[in-house]
């Protein structure tokens, strides 16, 4: 590959959503040269779809809020499976990361005294989400985009070149990470526009590629969400954890078919929307699980009062964490009480005036009016669960976001641990900010620590990467399968994969179906290898999909394997054959990795990092009993237990 285009940087960031851009800004501000590789055009990342807001305990609306409450809410939401150190860092640093955005030019909605306004959201005890109407994600991306432009203007002033230290490579897809021995040496990819290959040589690579939703049939995710970072990390020798935990957002649009899966923001419920079944009943009151019984209203009247007086009333169960609401909707539909197109009704028109709805939920109002011909200020509308987020991801060090592969970092949705078994709404955007910045710092420190020693990619690896990327142009069904069948169409294989994952690895899972899914995934792998593409390399979506398919299959296999292994129901993983949460599984992370030197995946059990006593002390003993095992509780109760002494209370 002597003619291969090559670029050298200190840090390569793969992904240009919130996490990737925050990481890139940090590494550049620390003086390193950074390239951002972006699968779409710059500024189109899936982060723009985030609606509700950024969770940060600034206490602008309720001054009782503080990082400790945010910590407890997040751990409770994640069913105590979260990496507690990540949750702690997240809760402590989110507010600073939000305030920093204002210095980049972001314009959040305001409180009466001119501070950043904060709204209620499922699972958050106080109004906590900084927001801009219902387009917070767009504001975040635009703010970062403009901050990057400002850094480039600084570089232009200093070096006469906007791209001297920070360059965005738009419409660039990475197909493989390259290594030198154990350490990362760079990334290999292609320009979508020309199909030409390119090598980015860099000692540090930050994965910020987002999620995996495109493996499912009904999803709120865009075409980019094909699990690229998860698969790249796996193939480079990193670990994936918690892959069985997938969040199905309870309220996606379900009608008409063209909008199926598109998100209806949780703010609709946070601002007063109620869920009803075909009998007109507010069914969520029947679905408050024991662990949450003390935190939610028991009657409609109390739930209704909460919107006016949050001090003296409990919140309505429509605001339970997402996994609970999604399962409840699923149960109602199964019981025959669903809406005409297989969902339930969400109604915001009874509580809010049309003017308030249009002001607070402008995008939702427009989205329904223009895409579905439904006026949400006047009528209830149908919603149902949609694949939204993967809690699982690349295992990283909580402080630096480094993986077990030297030089490989991950942040944002592609990383795992922060959200445990279920993510609270609003914690994703704050996750991007907190851990994006930390990954940028982590990578910068790693690169500085290397000195002049730069790892180099081998010619053989580059040859292999190029050959693999071109395989879909040479797929020969006859040679591989011994049949005379026509080569596979990548679009058909993709559709079939989505069907398998939705039918067999969806919201409610059972052993026989997960086993069947794993068998079917093996067949799909063979078919994907036979997927052939027409035409040439210039902006050819069929080719791009054929390459993405391999990543989707890797991730789907991890997901199904982990889901089969975990014999309990917790957060975003519900087993019909193991319907309850089992404290013995609370302490277990399922780690998925490739057996070194092979293509075979293995699962190993690893303990969830211990929750520090001072952090455990934030919970009532009564609540901990629902999550911890008897021996864990005994340790807590022993007189030597550090929790009985003063813990750190920063």
């Amino acid at each position: 590959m002597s003619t291969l285009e090559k670029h050298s940087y200190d840090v390569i960031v793969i992904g240009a959503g919130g996490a990737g851009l925050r990481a890139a800004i940090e590494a550049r501000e620390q003086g390193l040269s950074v390239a951002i590789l972006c699968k779409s055009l710059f500024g189109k990342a899936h982060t723009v779809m985030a609606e509700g807001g950024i969770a940060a305990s600034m206490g602008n609306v309720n001054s009782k809020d503080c990082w400790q409450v945010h910590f407890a809410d997040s751990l409770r939401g994640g069913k105590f499976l979260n990496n507690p150190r990540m949750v702690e860092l997240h809760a402590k640093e989110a507010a600073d990361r939000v305030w920093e955005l204002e210095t980049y030019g972001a314009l959040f909605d305001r409180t009466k005294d001119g501070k950043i306004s904060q709204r209620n959201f499922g699972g958050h005890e106080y109004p906590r989400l900084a927001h801009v109407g219902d387009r917070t994600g767009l504001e975040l991306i635009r703010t970062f985009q403009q901050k990057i432009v400002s850094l480039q203007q600084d570089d232009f002033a200093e070096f006469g070149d906007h791209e001297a230290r920070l360059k965005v490579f738009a419409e660039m897809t990475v197909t493989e990470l390259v290594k030198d021995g154990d350490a990362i040496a760079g990334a290999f990819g292609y320009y979508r526009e020309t199909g030409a290959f390119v090598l980015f040589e860099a000692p540090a690579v930050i994965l910020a590629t987002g999620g995996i939703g495109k493996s499912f049939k009904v999803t709120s995710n865009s075409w980019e969400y094909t699990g690229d970072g998860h698969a790249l990390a796996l193939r480079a020798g990193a670990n994936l954890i918690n892959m069985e935990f997938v969040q199905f957002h309870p309220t996606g649009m379900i009608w008409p078919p063209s909008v199926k899966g598109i998100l209806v923001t949780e703010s609709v419920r946070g601002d007063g929307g109620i869920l009803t079944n075909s009998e007109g009943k507010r069914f969520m009151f029947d679905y408050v699980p024991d662990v949450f019984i003390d935190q939610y209203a028991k009657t409609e009247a109390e739930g209704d009062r909460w919107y006016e007086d949050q001090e003296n009333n409990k919140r309505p169960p429509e605001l339970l964490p997402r996994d609970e609401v999604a399962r409840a909707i699923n149960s109602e539909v199964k019981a025959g009480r669903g809406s005409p197109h297989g969902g339930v009704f969400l109604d915001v028109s009874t509580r809010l005036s049309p003017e308030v709805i249009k002001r607070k939920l402008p995008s939702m109002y427009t989205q329904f009016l223009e895409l579905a011909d439904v006026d949400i200020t006047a009528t209830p509308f149908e919603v149902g669960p949609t694949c939204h987020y993967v809690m699982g991801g690349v295992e990283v060090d909580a402080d630096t976001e480094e993986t077990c592969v030297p030089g490989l970092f991950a942040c944002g949705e592609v990383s795992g641990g922060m959200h445990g078994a279920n993510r609270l709404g609003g914690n994703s955007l704050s996750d991007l900010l907190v851990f994006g910045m930390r990954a940028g710092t982590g990578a910068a420190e790693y690169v500085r620590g290397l000195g002049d020693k730069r790892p180099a990619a081998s010619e053989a690896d580059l040859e292999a990467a190029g050959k693999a990327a071109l395989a879909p142009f040479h797929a020969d069904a006859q040679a591989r399968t011994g049949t005379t069948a026509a080569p596979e169409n990548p679009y058909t294989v993709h559709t079939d994969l989505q069907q398998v994952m939705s039918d067999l690895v969806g919201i409610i899972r059972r052993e026989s179906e997960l086993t069947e899914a794993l068998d079917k995934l093996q067949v799909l792998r063979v078919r994907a290898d036979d997927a052939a593409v027409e035409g040439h390399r210039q902006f050819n979506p069929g080719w791009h999909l054929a390459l993405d398919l391999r990543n989707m299959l890797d991730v789907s296999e991890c997901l199904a394997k982990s889901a089969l292994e975990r014999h309990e129901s917790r957060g975003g993983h519900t087993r019909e054959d193991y319907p309850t949460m089992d404290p013995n599984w609370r302490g277990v992370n399922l780690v998925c990795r490739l057996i070194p030197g092979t293509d075979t995946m293995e699962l190993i059990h690893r303990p969830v990092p211990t929750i520090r006593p001072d952090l455990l002390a934030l919970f009532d003993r009564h609540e901990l009993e629902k999550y911890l095992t008897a021996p864990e509780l005994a340790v807590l109760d022993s007189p030597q237990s550090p929790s009985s002494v003063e813990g750190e209370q920063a």
Partner: protein
Amino acid sequence: MSHQAEFKVWRGDSDGGDLKDYTVEVNDGEVLLDVIHRLQATQAPDLGVRWNCKAGKCGSCSAEVNGKPSLMCMTRMNTFDPNETVSVTPLRAFPVIRDLVTDVSFNYEKARQIPAFSPPEGVGPGEYRMQQVDVERSQEFRKCIECFLCQDVCHVVRDHDDNKQAFAGPRFLIRAAELDMHPLDSRTDRAVFARDEQGIGLCNITKCCTEVCPEHIKITDNAIIPMKERVVDKKYDPLVWLGSKIGIRHD
């Protein structure tokens, strides 16, 4: 309910191309992007098209539908007569890369020329105080999803490629206005920049940009006209600039 509909889709690249006829199934409740995806999955796997969110939020799937700059994900098929042949062509103001994909780098270059937000001196993170009514003016422009339909339709550049050097286009005039109206931006030369560097004088207020904006931003009335007024007055009268920071137009 579904029917077969006729489409003319532009296929080609920078060396040229032409409209190709396709017959594609259309189902109730679908948008044009659904049909383009079906065409891709069943008849033209290498059809070049950009899209991301499919919900009118990312501004990727811009194209010209029967000659009108539109987002394909927001173009409902029931707005056409079932017997009508619908033409889908790439944005005309930008060079074609392939099929419906155009080179929009012009916009990123213009974005880079605008001086960034300039934070107020002596106000630390967490100390920013602004009133809702004041941020709303700039927030309107920050709704922009950068679909570049306004850039495409604007005839200052649509039919006059040579104007691209001197003219930033509506998208970046609202960026200038947004910064000008930002309650805490410390620069005072946004309007002068719009005149001297962005070519705001070339705009003759035909409001085509406002008409195609999928976010319904009042580009002309709320951004370009106020900026034009300030361009004239500002140098001579700082009170006009101050006044411009207070009022807002509604229509």
